[in-house]
C-alpha cells in the first residue's frame, strides 16, 4: 500500500514537473524511487543496516518552493535583524500589502514560514523561526485577519534563501515567507 502511494506520488510529481515551465527540471529518471540500501556496494555487513525506499520523500513539499507567491509585485517576505523577531517599517509595509490581499480574498488562507541564518544552534533557531512567524501572525491578527486562516511553521536554519557565509546572505535568511496554499 505504502509502496503504491509512493509510486503514485512519483507519477503525479513527474506530471507536475512536466507541466512546470520554469527552470528545466530533472530528466525523467531523477525522481524514480531508488532503493536506499547502504549495505550493498559497501561490502559492509555491519549491523545489518538496510535502507528503505524513500527516495522521493519530501519531493512534493520541496516542489512547493518553486511556486511564485508574489502578489502585485511585492515580494511576500519580511526580514529580521540578528536574533530579533521585531517587525520593522519595511516589514510592516509588506504585511499591510498582504492584509489587503487577504481582505480581497476572504477564503484564502496563509502560511507563515519562519527562517533563521545558520549561526548558533539549529534547534534554538527552529524556535526563533517560529517566534518570527508568530510575530507576523500577531501583526496579521491585529489587522483583522482571522487567526483560523493563518498557519505558522518554522524551518529554523534549514532552508536558507542565500548560501553565503557573510552578512549579506545572513540578512536574506532571517525572514518570514508568506505562502498562499491553493
Amino acid at each position, binding site marked *: 500500500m505504502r509502496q503504491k502511494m509512493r509510486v503514485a506520488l512519483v507519477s503525479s510529481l513527474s506530471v507536475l514537473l512536466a507541466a512546470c515551465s520554469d527552470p528545466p527540471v530533472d530528466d525523467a529518471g531523477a525522481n524514480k524511487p531508488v532503493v536506499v540500501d547502504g549495505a550493498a556496494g559497501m561490502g559492509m555487513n555491519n549491523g545489518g543496516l538496510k535502507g528503505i525506499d524513500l527516495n522521493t520523500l519530501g519531493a512534493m513539499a520541496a516542489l512547493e518552493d518553486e511556486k511564485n507567491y508574489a502578489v502585485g509585485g511585492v515580494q511576500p517576505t519580511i526580514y529580521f535583524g540578528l536574533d530579533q523577531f521585531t517587525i520593522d517599517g519595511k516589514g510592516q509595509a509588506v504585511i499591510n500589502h498582504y492584509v489587503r490581499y487577504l481582505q480581497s480574498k476572504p477564503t484564502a488562507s496563509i502560511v507563515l514560514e519562519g527562517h533563521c541564518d545558520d549561526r548558533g*544552534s539549529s534547534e534554538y533557531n527552529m524556535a526563533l523561526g517560529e517566534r518570527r512567524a508568530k510575530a507576523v501572525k500577531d501583526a496579521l491578527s491585529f489587522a483583522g485577519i482571522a487567526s483560523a486562516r493563518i498557519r505558522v511553521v518554522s524551518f529554523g536554519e534549514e532552508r536558507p534563501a542565500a548560501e553565503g557565509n557573510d552578512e549579506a546572505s545572513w540578512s536574506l535568511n532571517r525572514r518570514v515567507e508568506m505562502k498562499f496554499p491553493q
Partner: protein
Amino acid sequence: MMQLSGISINRFTKALLLCASLWGSAQALAQDAVRVEITGGTEQSLPIAVTPFKNQVAVINPDFNLAQIIRDDLARSGSFTPMKESEMSAAVLAGELNLDYWRKMLQDYLVIGEIRAQGGDMYQVDMRLINTLNNQEMVARRWNGVSAPLLRTAAHQMSDAIYTAVTGRGGAFDSRMAYVRVERVQGKRKMFLLEVADSDGYAPRTILRSYMPLMSVSWSPDGSKLAYVSFENRRPEIIVQSLDGRSRQSVAAYEGINSAPAWSADGRSLLMTLSKGGNPDIYVMDIESKRLTQLTFDAAIETEAVWSADGQSIFFNSDRRGQPQIFQTSLANPRDVKRLTFEGKYNARPVASGDGRYLAYVRQDIGGFKVTTQDLVSGSAKVISTTGTDESPSFSPNGDMIAYSYNDYRGGVIAVLSRNGRAFTKLAINGDVRDPAWGPLNNSQ
C-alpha cells in the same frame, strides 16, 4: 549486531618476546589520509609505537591497513601520540623485536600484530600490546575468521582493547556515527541524506533520502533505531526509524514545533521540544503509549533537552533570561530549575557524558560559536574548539571525545575533538555533512 570480537591468546614468555623475530619486511603502507592536529593542552599524551602488521600485504585493500587504523584511532582520543611509521627504523621493523630500540625512541608502549589469510577472503589477526618499560605484555588477542570488510571493525576493537588496557577507561572506537549529508541534485535542488558510518567516518551507509531537511539525530541506546526531525511534510515532525529499514514511524506531529528528540538510557522514552502549548517547551514521551508529560512551563523558548547520566534530571537550553543559557531540572520536581552557565552570552545545545561528569555545549564568544566543556563537579568551563561555527556536539560512548560539525568554505564538516582539547581530527567523510550523533558501542548490543 556484529558478533566480531577478539579472544585472548597465549602470551609470549618474556624470553620468547625478546628473541621473537619481528615481521619479515616492513610494508610501506603508511598513509596520512586522516590528519590529526595536536592543539595543545596539559594532560599527558602517551607515546605508542604501532608497527605494521606482519603480512599486511596479504590484504589488498589499502583502506584496511590495520596499524594505521589503530594509530588514527588512538591519536583521535588525545590520550596517545602514536609514532609515525615513517619514523620507525626499517632495520628494526625487519629484524629483532628489540625493546631497547623502542625504549630509546621513548615509546612506552608497543603494538605488534600479524595477519594470516585463511582462504575465501577470511583472515585471522593477532594483536599484542607490550609495555616497553617493564617488558609486560598487556594484551594478547586473536580475531578469527574475519571477512575482509570487517577488518576495519577488528582494528577498532583492537584500539578499544589498547585504550582500555593503558588508560583503564572504556573504549569508543568500535561504534558508529549518524549524521546528515546534503547533496545537490543536478546542481540545484537539495537532497538530504541520513547516513551511518563507523566512528572514524569510514564505511558510510545511507538509510534515508529526502528532498526536505533532516536534523537532530538521536540514537536508541541499543543502537537499533534513530529518532530525528524530518520536514518531509513541510513542517518539523519527529520520526523513529529502525536501522534495518523495517520500521519508520512519525511519533510527534503536533501543531507547531516537533523537534530535538533525545532517547532515554532505558530506551523507553524520548525527550522532545513541542510548541503545541503556544511556545516551545520540553516534554517527555513514553514511546510505547505516546503519552506526554510536560517538563518546562516558562513562556520563553525551552529546547534541546538531554538526559543526565543518572536519568533523574535533564539539561536544556532556555532563553528565559533573555539569551540562550543551559539549565537543569529534575524529573521528580520540574518546577525546581537550576541555571548552569553564566559565562558567555549564548550557551546552547547541551549534551552530558555517559559517566555524568561532563557537559558539552556550544558557547558564543569572540571567536564565534565554540564547543565548550563544563566539569559538572567543579563547575569550571573550558572552550576547547578552534573553529567558530560549531554545532551539535555529541559525546563518544566513553565520554573522552566529542564529535561536532562546523562550516568551512566548502560546507559542513564533521570533526572529533578529544575532551581534553588536545586532538582535533576532521573525519574522513566527504561532502557537505552536519549534525553528528555518536552511537553506542557496537559490542554493547
